[in-house]
């Protein structure tokens, strides 16, 4: 067995001969720390946080093994405790279990097999417990995310619905068609906002729970789809859409993640434009070289305040009062880029525009 794979054991006994005998018998199986008294034992525990099993003699001059275990339980809860004793009266057994929370009880005189079985089972117990600890922490994280999620979802889904409900209520008392049409326009926006939000949740779910499917990526084809969608938006809002794609080599990646990235970046660029200027534009540039895709999405829109740039990838963060955002898009972008081992940087200035640069290595 490799030395690094050996599990760490602490043995405490006031009889030095026992300690040496123990070490001689098991030094090939475990990394053994020995202590002749409580002080030495505590020093070992302090220095070796990954000790998995502690064996202690019951009869020692300064403290009994049970008292020792009882004392260290709170500070060192992880190591599994085994008591070695010649006494087997029922009182000491009860004490051992109740005070010391003992996992096993080994009777003196012990055989090598007794000890080995006890330690191996204790190690199994330790592993199960620490796995449980890790799983619990993961679960806690998932719960925390869910709490945050549920909070914002109730707001982001109820918000548009309640607006529409309110509008319907008022519209019933209005006779002026122009007023009603104005309200319908705003209700339309609310519905679209809700729909975008639901699609983002779908993206989020796919990114977090879905399997990646690595295929050959043809950026030309992906871009053609995007062009179809955004050419219409561009024409309606008088935004020039310039595209350049340069792919001479093979590129393998997860197409769905790439689409989430491109779609969100482009939709932001088209959304957050400055209404006052004439030469509105969005530029998409994709270049594949040295097994890496370089994607640049640039616009001359409203830009982002420098003070808030570091928050834009946070879940539900919205940097502007423009009411179309859900605070989900760039979070999903960052998530997707992380899954593809890529990186994203942003260069932005308020009232001048934003440039997002993404690099993704081929899989």
């Amino acid at each position, binding site marked *: 067995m490799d030395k690094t794979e050996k599990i760490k054991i602490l043995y405490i006994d006031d009889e030095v001969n026992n300690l040496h005998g123990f070490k001689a018998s098991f030094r090939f199986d475990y990394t053994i720390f020995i202590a002749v008294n409580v002080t030495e034992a505590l020093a070992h525990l302090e220095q070796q946080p990954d000790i998995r099993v502690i064996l202690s003699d019951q009869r020692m001059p300064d403290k009994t093994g049970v008292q020792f275990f009882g004392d260290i339980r709170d500070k060192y809860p992880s190591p599994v405790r085994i008591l070695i004793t010649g006494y087997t009266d029922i009182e000491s057994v009860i004490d051992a279990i109740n005070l010391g929370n003992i996992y096993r009880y080994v009777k003196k005189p012990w055989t090598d097999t007794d000890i080995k079985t006890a330690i191996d089972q204790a190690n199994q117990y330790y592993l199960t417990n620490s796995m449980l600890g890790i799983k619990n922490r993961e679960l806690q994280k998932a719960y925390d995310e869910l709490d945050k999620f549920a909070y914002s979802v109730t707001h982001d889904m109820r918000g548009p619905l309640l607006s529409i409900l309110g509008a319907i209520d008022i519209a019933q008392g209005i006779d002026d068609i122009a007023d009603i049409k104005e309200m319908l326009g705003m209700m339309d926006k609310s519905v679209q906002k809700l729909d975008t939000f639901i699609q983002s949740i779908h993206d989020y779910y796919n990114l977090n729970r879905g399997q990646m499917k690595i295929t050959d990526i043809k950026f030309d084809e992906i871009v053609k789809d995007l062009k179809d969608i955004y050419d219409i938006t561009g024409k309606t809002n008088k935004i020039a859409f310039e595209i350049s794609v340069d792919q001479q080599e093979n590129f393998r990646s997860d197409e769905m993640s790439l689409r989430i990235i491109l779609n969100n970046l482009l939709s932001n660029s088209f959304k957050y434009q400055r209404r006052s200027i004439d030469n509105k534009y969005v530029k998409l540039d994709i270049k594949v070289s040295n097994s890496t895709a370089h994607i640049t999405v640039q616009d001359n829109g409203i830009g982002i305040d420098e003070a808030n740039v570091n928050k834009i990838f946070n879940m539900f963060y*919205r940097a502007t009062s423009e009411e179309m955002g859900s605070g989900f898009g760039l979070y999903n972008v960052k998530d997707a880029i992380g899954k593809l081992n890529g990186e994203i940087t942003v260069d932005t200035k308020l009232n001048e525009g934003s440039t997002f640069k993404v690099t993704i290595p081929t899989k």
Partner: protein
Amino acid sequence: MTPDTLNFIIIDDSKLDCFIADKIIRNTGKAGDIKSFTNAATALEHIKETPPPADAKTTVLLDIQMPVMNGFEFIEAFEQLPAEIVGGYNVYMLSSSINENDLNRVKNYHSIKQFLNKPLTSSALAAILEEQAQ
């Protein structure tokens, strides 16, 4: 003496919600000046710079969840303003939130008169006007 009309400030990032509140207020027939802000920071600037009329308090309808400056951030900054300005306003918090923490948090701010559920209805507004008339 009860004034004939009341002034309002609506703060909500949703234009539709501003519109709804505006309509409902006008429908009461008691509306004076109504101002809508989709950005709470802009609303705060406005309040800082315009002294409220001395005879009647201005009613503020404030949304909670907004980008840039949310309802709670607004109220914290608002309560820092000079007492004669703060005293000129009745703030009502308005939200779609069904989150207990949000509802409890509202109680911590003495300048918030009440929490109202969205959407704003004419009966809820009538109750506010009633209260202010007393």
